[in-house]
């Protein structure tokens, strides 16, 4: 399984389009992070990490949408489906794409954190988040560095969910366009709901229970989300992610009639 996951990860990430886009995004986020004070600098990270979520989404779905389309394009799906471990391919893709998405999100966060920290000579990483203006409403004593750690963890959980959705859409599509667009919509609607303040259609109290907000835990903390939001987002992501993973097994391994 390790070998399969490693090779699936290579298939997912080692593509010119993905690597170039990833590089460009990392460069861009480094330009927007940072400030002159500890509060401004680290606030910029947690504020702007959410604003770059569309770029993260584009990168993630660039990877997911090709996962099975690649098999259909190279006609390797027939070779795979005649083997003993055809289901293991689905598991390996599921793990590899979750890792790939997590790497993207965490690398973007890391790039912003390093940029922000370097702007203030690496001071203030142990500052409680209630002392940085973006998260002052939290009243929490967890440190900036710990917050980055929590954000990374929720990135991994969110990556699992979006990877399974993207992989399922890819396994049922003939081109990468549908999974890319549909996945983008699933991820993007809560983002638009917030940006355009469509609060009557998407009141904030409901947005806190969407997978996107669950992934960006800094948003949950900023808006003082209740514990139920964290619990719901976590269970929802894992359960629905697992369901889509099962759908993908069925979709990819079924014998055509």
């Amino acid at each position, binding site marked *: 399984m390790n070998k399969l996951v490693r090779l699936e990860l290579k298939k997912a990430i080692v*593509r010119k389009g993905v690597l170039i886009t990833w590089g460009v995004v990392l460069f861009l986020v480094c330009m927007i992070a940072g400030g002159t004070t500890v509060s401004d600098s680290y606030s910029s990270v947690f504020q702007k990490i959410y604003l770059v979520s569309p770029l993260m989404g584009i990168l993630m779905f660039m990877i997911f949408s090709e996962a099975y389309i690649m098999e259909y394009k*190279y006609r*390797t799906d027939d*070779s795979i489906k005649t083997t*003993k471990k055809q289901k293991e391919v689905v598991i390996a893709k599921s793990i590899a794409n979750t890792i790939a998405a997590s790497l993207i999100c965490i690398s973007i966060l890391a790039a912003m954190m390093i940029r922000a920290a370097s702007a203030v000579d690496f001071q203030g990483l142990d500052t409680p988040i209630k002392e940085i203006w973006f998260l002052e409403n939290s009243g929490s004593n967890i440190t900036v560095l710990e917050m980055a750690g929590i954000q990374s963890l929720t990135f991994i959980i969110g990556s699992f969910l979006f990877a399974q959705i993207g992989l399922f859409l890819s396994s049922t599509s003939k081109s990468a366009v549908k999974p890319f667009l549909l996945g983008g919509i699933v991820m993007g609607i809560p983002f638009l709901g917030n940006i355009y303040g469509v609060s009557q259609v998407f009141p904030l109290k409901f947005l806190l229970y969407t997978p996107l907000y669950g992934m960006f835990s800094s948003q949950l903390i900023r808006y003082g989300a209740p514990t139920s939001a964290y619990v719901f987002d976590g269970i929802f992501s894992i359960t629905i992610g697992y369901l889509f993973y099962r759908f993908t097994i069925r979709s990819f391994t079924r*014998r055509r009639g």
Partner: protein
Amino acid sequence: MSKLEIVGLTKAYGKKIANDHINISLNCGVYGLLGPNGAGKTTLMRQIVALTKPTSGEILYDGQKIEVLDTKYRNLLGYLPQDFDAYGNFKILEFLEYMAALKDVKDSKAKINELMSLVGLQEVKGRKIAKLSGGMKRRVGIAQALLNNPKILVLDEPTAGLDPQERNRFRNMISNLGKEAIVILSTHIISDVEQVAKEIIMIKNGRVRIKASGKELLGKMAGKVFGIRVKDEEQIAEINEKYKIVNVQRGADYTNVRFISHSKPEIVDVWKEEPMFEDVYIEYFER
């Protein structure tokens, strides 16, 4: 000895019948599946390797339905699809490692090295698949089909893109494999099978026309193949109207026509020819 039985197999796509009540029984050995384009060869092979479900009928391995055997059956299979391809940014070695992992091959490194030597790709194992010629890709396809020492090896047009030397090497390899496995080989190229196949299965319009050894097939053509030297194109056209032309050989100052007739031809100066497989193909597929 293992046995693969295909019983009353029918595959329909809407109103089109791709395979029509096929009944064949296969033991160890090489079986050539011959037929024109659209005959139903690939459809049959895809059902044998459990990629598609039959509309009716069944496939049994050692008396058990292949759907019931499931993973155990897949573990016995080696398959080369007609339009085989692989990930362009993978090296040959990486792709074979990937397939070896899927087939749960123990000691995969040694097996891969052995197969790379067998198919003559040892020197280019680090090359990316996108940089390979069509013939080389085909050889990668053959190698991946053999990774798990399959007991049922299904090869769809395996020699497409191979040069004569590679084709010869392939025939020798298949001949050896046929000693311990059921090898089903579909091809348009008669020479691929005439020397190595235990039996040839000729399929047209979804039905098996005949299943017999090469010797038996040639025996059926005895006394039916003739040759004649002609003077002009008009004569060729006349022969074509009455008989089945197999080939026309044009020399510098002569033209020989080889044709099939079920009775003594009403032409002077014909001679009898020894039947070849090409005659068999024309006889069964050019009606």
